[in-house]
């Protein structure tokens, strides 16, 4: 076992063996999962107006689309992951994404939604559905670089940006649930950054290809923000700069526009 508590102080091989392991995952999640059924430590519901409730349901429907995309993609990627460490990491990500979906569906039921699947079908925004379709095309084509990039960089940055913003304004139960999800997203983004970082060092031409994919997906992400905020009835002047935050998060991982 490594002698340091900080994995970033480890050499590359030991870093990967440590981070891509169940032990690491379990230690990471047990602090914020224990005693929090469905992502919430038994907080009291606050009163929501009908407009707020409908807005929240629409938002949760879109979150479910994103998490289903992440679940289907991360599970599909295990079959062509390049090494055992990546397979192990993705197995932990699969269960994270499955849990996210479960807590989001549970929250919808708490809000009185009887048939979440029907609501998702009706309320999901088109750009996000298109994003999901593109991501799963990369996975079906067993294109590792494009899949990791679309899933662990772009989609995770999208979710990270939106969930963090939303957690700051949401009712306490939803906010607590989102904070738990954000903690997982950080780990998933770290995997994408690390895996692609190594690949880009070895094959710099990959950068051009990923930038091309980024340009295509960026527009879907930015449209998703605009559509979601529009559906929520947020006035243009009051809208947070989610696109700017998203692009900054992706840039921090080394992918600039």
């Amino acid at each position, binding site marked *: 076992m490594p002698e340091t508590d900080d994995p970033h102080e480890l050499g590359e091989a030991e870093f990967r063996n440590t981070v891509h392991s*169940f032990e690491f995952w379990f230690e990471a999640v047990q602090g914020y999962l224990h005693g929090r059924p469905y992502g919430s430590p038994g907080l009291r519901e606050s009163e929501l107006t009908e407009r707020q409730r409908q807005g929240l349901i629409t938002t949760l429907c879109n979150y479910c689309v994103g998490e289903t995309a992440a679940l289907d993609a991360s*599970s*599909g990627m295990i079959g062509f992951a390049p090494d055992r460490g990546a*397979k192990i990491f993705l*197995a932990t990500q*699969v*269960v994270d*994404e499955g849990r996210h979906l479960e807590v989001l569906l549970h929250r919808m039921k708490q809000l009185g939604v009887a048939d979440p699947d029907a609501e998702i079908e009706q309320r999901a925004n088109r750009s996000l559905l298109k994003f999901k379709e593109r991501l799963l095309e990369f996975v079906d084509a067993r294109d590792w670089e494009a899949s990791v990039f679309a899933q662990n960089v772009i989609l995770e940055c999208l979710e990270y940006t939106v969930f963090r913003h939303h957690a700051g304004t949401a009712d306490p139960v939803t906010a607590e649930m989102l904070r738990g999800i954000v903690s997982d997203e950080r780990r998933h983004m770290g995997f994408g950054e690390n895996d692609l970082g190594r690949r880009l060092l070895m094959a710099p031409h990959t950068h051009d290809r990923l930038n091309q994919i980024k340009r295509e997906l960026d527009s879907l992400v930015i449209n998703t923000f605009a559509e979601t905020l529009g559906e929520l009835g947020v006035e243009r002047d009051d809208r947070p700069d989610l696109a700017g935050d998203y692009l900054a998060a992706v840039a921090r991982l080394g992918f600039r526009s």
Partner: protein
Amino acid sequence: MQLIAGERCALAASSGLVNAAPDQASKTFLATQTLDEGRHVEIFTQRLYDLGVKPNDLETTIKTYINPHLGKFAEVLLEKIDKKDFVAGVVGQNIVLEGMAFSVFEMLHAGAEASNPKFAHTLSGTIADERRHVGFGENRIGELIRRYPEKKPEVQRMQREMTKHMLATFHEAFARNGSPAEARTGAPQKDRAGPTYQGLNLAEASNEEMEGALSATVLKEFKTRLGRIGLEYQSPV
């Protein structure tokens, strides 16, 4: 080595099935199963390292020692997974593969309990997981088989193929390599009874007897579990 190969197949199959699952509850269960199978791969790989295999030699060691019949067994299942055939995939994975793994682990556990408690403990955790996985297969697929009876012949063909390769795997494992090393480790002390599996004294049984006991146990399990989901066991003989 064979345990890692089997668990790798289970990891590929359960993760591949998430995408093909027709409902949310199945996706969620398969997500937890993916985590379990990944952990099993990790645990058995670590055991190999403990036995002296170097991480850099892992893949070549597995390629060298994998039982070719087990490779074919996995191919039959993974072909269904690649086609996103959920019903066949779950029968192959959660009834056939898990049913086989469950019995093999129980035999290994019986052999290791007294002589290698650490490995026996690892196996008992794995057995508990497999029991849950088999339960999902029975529960979810029974309903789907009733809904899509036209799937029966194809699924039964797959079960027959997988059973054929499984029995060949057992035969080769016992005949060529001797009995699995872990099952033999519990040799009896002078005044103590040896480990038993299905009433068979593992320390004294011949390879043929051990193969017979394992095969009979797995096949009996298959018949029971397939019957519960409305399928008739197909003998490869």
